[in-house]
């Protein structure tokens, strides 16, 4: 496919899914009344209080997480990592837990910042560990990430259990858009700004992905680039966790598929990654809404299944050059 046709297809898919997302739910809206403007006051309320917020939240979280995954893969020069598989999500949850225990009165924005700070620490820890590896085996890096997130996760579980916060922890660790209403998701708009920042710095991330020596040789400040990248990644993780919870594997699945179709030149491919992430999460959310009406299946659960299948496929697709 040519780049332009990919872009067109992806945009169309996102638009179609968004419209579907506006219609589908416990109370159905018909496309006809939406198009002709024949909506009752009740319909409008539903649309503005629930459906629009939910659709925006899904788009923003999907795009943000996919881009965060892409950045993480560039910074660690590894295909198989993303925030939720290297301990960033768990660290951010730890941050939420800590701030809920120590300063429950803080405004949500401040709480999110604390979560982001913890996420940043988690990401930095992961980077520090993999930089120590003499043999940067392509599969050792994600393995270490998964174990690291397991360890942090166990600690978070322990704390939550001790302080009776298992339920809150559950809501942070399982992505779910069913609770999204106007007034409860707006923090996610921050993801839009962060994604824009990522697009601006795309070239630098691509160069960082070619390795420190290449980046420095071309005059790119490697340390600063990595730091900016990690800040974006942890902020995106934190806002999603605070607003809707962890959505696993988006950051892994989308950049990998885009890479297969259109390569890894960040500046060109970030738009696809962004649209792909939005489309994927929207599709999973819609699926979760229709599959077991009137109950909803959280997007975290559907993504878990889908993401694991794609991950395994990638793992056995071909022998990676650097395995």
């Amino acid at each position, binding site marked *: 496919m040519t780049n332009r046709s990919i872009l067109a297809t992806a945009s169309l898919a996102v638009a179609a899914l968004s419209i579907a997302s506006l219609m589908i739910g416990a109370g159905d809206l018909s496309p006809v009344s939406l198009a002709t403007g024949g909506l009752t006051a009740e319909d409008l309320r539903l649309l503005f209080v629930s459906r629009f917020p939910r659709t925006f939240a899904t788009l923003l979280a999907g795009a943000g997480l996919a881009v965060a995954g892409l950045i993480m893969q560039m910074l660690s020069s590894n295909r198989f990592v993303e925030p939720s598989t290297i301990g960033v999500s768990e660290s951010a949850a730890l941050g939420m837990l800590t701030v809920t225990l120590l300063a429950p009165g803080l405004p949500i924005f401040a709480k999110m910042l604390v979560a982001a700070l913890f996420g940043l620490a988690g990401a930095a820890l992961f980077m520090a560990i993999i930089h120590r590896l003499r043999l940067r085996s392509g599969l050792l890096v994600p393995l270490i990430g998964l174990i690291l997130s*397991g*360890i942090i996760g166990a600690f978070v579980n322990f704390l939550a259990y001790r302080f009776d916060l298992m339920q809150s922890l559950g809501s942070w660790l399982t992505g779910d858009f069913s609770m999204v209403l106007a007034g409860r998701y707006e923090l996610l708009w921050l993801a839009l700004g962060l994604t824009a920042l990522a697009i601006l710095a795309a070239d630098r991330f691509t160069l960082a992905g070619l390795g420190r020596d290449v980046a420095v040789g071309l005059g790119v400040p490697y340390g600063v680039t990595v730091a900016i990248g990690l800040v974006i990644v942890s902020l995106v993780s934190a806002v999603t966790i605070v607003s809707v919870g962890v959505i696993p594997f988006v950051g892994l699945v989308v950049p990998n598929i885009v890479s297969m179709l259109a390569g890894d030149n960040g500046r060109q491919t970030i738009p696809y990654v962004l649209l792909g992430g939005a489309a994927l999460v929207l599709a999973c959310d819609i699926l979760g809404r229709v599959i077991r009406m009137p109950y909803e299946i959280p997007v975290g659960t559907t993504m878990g299944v889908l993401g694991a299948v794609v991950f395994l496929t990638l793992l056995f697709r071909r022998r990676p050059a650097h395995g």
Partner: protein
Amino acid sequence: MDDALRLDERRAAARPIAPPSKPRRSAIRENGVILAGLGALALVSCVLFMTIDARGAWGFVLPFRGAKLAAMLLVGHAIAVSTILFQTISANRILTPSIMGFDAFYGLIQTVLVFFAGAAFAAALDPKLLFTVETITLIGFASLLYGTLLSTGARDIHRLLLSGVILGVLFRSVSGLMQRLIDPTEFVVVQDRLFASFNSVDTTLLGISAIVIAVVTLAVIRMLPVLDVLALGREPAISLGIEHRRMVLIVLGIVASFVAVSTALVGPVAFFGLLVASLARVLVGSREHAATILAASLLAAIALVAGQTILERVLGFDAVLGMVVEFIGGIVFLVLLLKRGTA
């Protein structure tokens, strides 16, 4: 990493064989003191667990704590032995059944059965019958899946580990999805059965678990000499006349039975096996399975019983043993991985 592995093999092959000046004693007798010490420690832990804070009401305390103790001993033994066996057939010291997603697989089988049989029907069924069906299913599918995985992926340990971990994620996610698909009101009925843990031990299955463990352990004891040869790796084992593939499948079946027991009783325990198996090797070496397995089993008993006693009775932290084990075991695993990756 591949290189590092190969180097290990070469080093092992190049190690000079000591001249047989006098017949060596068996590993058990050689490590008699250590094993006796571990046995004593395990016994003391059990006694303490049963007696600390048990004021009056013995009629209530004894059966209650006794059942819990029995469960911990069974589970510890099952995890320890299955881990060592799994490491033997995969010729690797950092793989364990649970890291490879074995117990998540058991969880999936449980969920699938409930899903297709209907929650109400499953709840009405005799738990022992259900357990038996689940165990047999696990033995069948796990041997197939992991037999294939081990034979195809054995050369690249990281790919093997990573696919195991992700398989675990997949099994858990599919279970989660199916649980969501079951009618929520019906689901409550089976929920307890699906989520055993150290503090809600499923005691109805103690008897049948004990029988399974006894039978399988006997089988392991009979296989000890073969296991020692299997530990040399695939090629040496074949050239010494072992039917490697068949043996691997048999051992996988044994491992599956152990995993079924421990998961049915207390739920998944990710890194515990790695912890006790590594420690056992440090203490008694790995020359003979008899000693390693015995030591690992005793260590598991000590860790679980003493750990539970300390956490519950001394520190007053109830119900966190699983998390503590996960935390410490995870760190040990990470250190092992890094040691091999950076050395």
